[in-house]
């Protein structure tokens, strides 16, 4: 068994791997963490922006907690190159770390479009803690914020911007909002809801430049009037941090989305090197094809599976399920699985006056994808969201229920219960054992 584990990246995947190694080995191995930043949860940065939590709340580990987990933490240090054959990582400062096995979990960074002015003053991304601090400093009551991009990331910070008392305009190059999370019908409902809540939307808008104009930012477009902003937030997508692996011998996919190619144990082409989270091109639970799922739940599962395997378990991973949920102005929007499958049998229901939408996508008798939208306080319309996940995840046979669900797409619960979905899910665990509480395992000796 490997005695020296190296974790590169202190995000969700890296920290879940560390915790799992310690759950498995009780502190017996050496763990080194190399992380460019002090570990924090990107997922909760929007709540820091919205001032509902303090900055101290975002951290997922401290130097003290890492010491208690018997982790040698090299924080603020950046990986520069990997010699996989020699099992050696070189850092940006020139120092080297040798290992028996390692995890690449270097995640993603925000990407800006090549538009002139997109790198200029007053134009921010919201991805890292440092970027969050800059946006917090720049968004005050009355600030006119223009956000470029109407995707998931943009929508996760929408409430926070409004909560700070700023006004918000969202511009999007695609003809509609949330193009990679929901379908057109759902996007229409969400867009109407946002406009009623004071958010200005401008879709199909190709930005040509951002420039300074009388102390403000002026955004120009191919068609239509320019837009003025006090601050611009670019939510125009992410890029995985993989460039530093060039020449490492680790195989990276040439397909769109890229990612390190991994096997069912999440090992790369070099068996002593694992990959997890945004940088890993791992199996899709429903299709088995290798895909990058740059979402929090995949980073968690990947990290835990890698941690168990690094600790000597022989654990195969079934694959990740793409899923997203976002709440904007108290409207819940969520999608699961193959929600845009063109070959699926699709059942939808819309209550436009109540901003409710439901979409079920079947392949044969199996629910392969789902979409849900509705006001958060209307519990009956949104509170079975977990059951939809359970039906998609378990691949329950809904053949007998398909005709019923076609007529009543909101009536998931009896179908879920009567097909013994809970019973089928109960023996299933990601690690082949019960999960532990997230606190420090008692077995780790606190130094």
């Amino acid at each position, binding site marked *: 068994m490997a005695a020296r584990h190296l974790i590169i990246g202190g995000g969700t995947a890296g920290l879940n791997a560390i915790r799992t190694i310690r759950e498995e080995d009780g502190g017996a191995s050496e763990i080194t963490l190399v992380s460019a930043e002090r570990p924090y949860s990107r997922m909760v940065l929007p709540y820091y922006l919205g001032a509902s939590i303090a900055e101290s709340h975002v951290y997922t580990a401290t130097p003290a907690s890492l010491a208690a987990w018997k982790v040698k933490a090299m924080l603020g240090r950046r990986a520069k190159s990997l010699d996989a054959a020699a099992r050696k990582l070189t850092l940006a400062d020139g120092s080297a770390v040798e290992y028996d096995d390692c995890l690449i979990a270097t995640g993603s960074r925000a990407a800006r479009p090549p538009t002139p002015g997109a790198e200029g003053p007053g134009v921010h991304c919201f991805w890292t803690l440092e970027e969050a601090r800059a946006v917090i400093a720049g968004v005050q009551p009355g600030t006119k914020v223009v956000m470029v991009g109407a995707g998931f990331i943009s929508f996760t910070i929408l409430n926070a911007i409004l909560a700070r008392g700023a006004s918000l305009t969202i511009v999007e190059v695609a003809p509609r909002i949330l193009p990679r999370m929901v379908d057109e019908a759902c996007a229409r409902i969400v867009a109407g809801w946002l406009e009623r809540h004071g958010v200005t939307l401008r879709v199909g808008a190709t930005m040509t430049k951002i420039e300074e104009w009388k102390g403000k930012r002026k955004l120009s477009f191919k068609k239509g009037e320019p837009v003025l902003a006090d601050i611009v937030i670019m939510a125009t997508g992410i890029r995985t941090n993989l460039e530093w692996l060039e020449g490492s011998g680790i195989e990276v996919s040439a397909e769109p989305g890229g990612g390190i190619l991994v096997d069912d144990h999440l090992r790369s082409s070099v068996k002593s090197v694992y990959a997890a989270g945004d940088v890993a091109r791992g199996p899709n639970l429903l299709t088995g094809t290798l895909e990058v799922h740059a979402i929090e739940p995949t980073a968690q599962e990947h990290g835990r599976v890698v941690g168990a395997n690094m600790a000597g378990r022989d654990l195969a991973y079934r694959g990740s399920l793409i899923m997203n949920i976002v709440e904007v102005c108290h409207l819940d929007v969520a999608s699961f699985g193959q929600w845009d499958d063109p070959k699926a049998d699709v059942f939808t229901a819309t209550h436009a006056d109540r901003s409710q939408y439901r979409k079920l996508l079947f392949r044969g008798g199996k629910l392969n994808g789902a979409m849900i939208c509705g006001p958060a306080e209307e519990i009956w319309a949104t509170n079975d*969201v977990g059951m939809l996940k359970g039906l998609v995840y378990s691949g329950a046979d809904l053949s007998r229920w398909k005709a019923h669900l076609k007529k009543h797409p909101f009536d998931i619960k009896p179908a879920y219960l*009567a097909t013994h979905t809970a019973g089928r899910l109960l023996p299933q665990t990601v690690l082949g054992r*019960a999960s532990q509480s997230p606190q420090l395992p008692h077995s780790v000796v606190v130094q």
Partner: protein
Amino acid sequence: MQTGTYQPSKSVIRVSPFEGYTSYAPYTCTQCAEGWCMTACPVGAIRINAAGAKDVVDDKCVGCKLCTIACPYGTMFYDPDTTKAFKCNLCEGHPACAEACPTEAITFAEGETADWIGDFAAERTTRVLARETA
């Protein structure tokens, strides 16, 4: 757990009606071995309490709702009033639902985690489905 309000829509144990409201069965968190809500939480706000139940630590929960889509049983909820997630925590070992139930349909005892409602629901929905497809 008790929300301190009289509002059935916020109950973490929910009764499903069957066959035109002639029979009923309660459904709540199974306290599953995976603990999908717990492993999904990005800030470690869901923990195992002394009663062995997965429990939300309110001070830590930011209300991101990730647990509500991670839980495949549909027993993880979000309260728009508190902006926190909430779920059955077995009332720290003294479940109020079991104490309140006048017919002992709900009892609290050590046992294997099980799908207690599947067979009942399958049987009680057979006629409805047959009628629909007839």
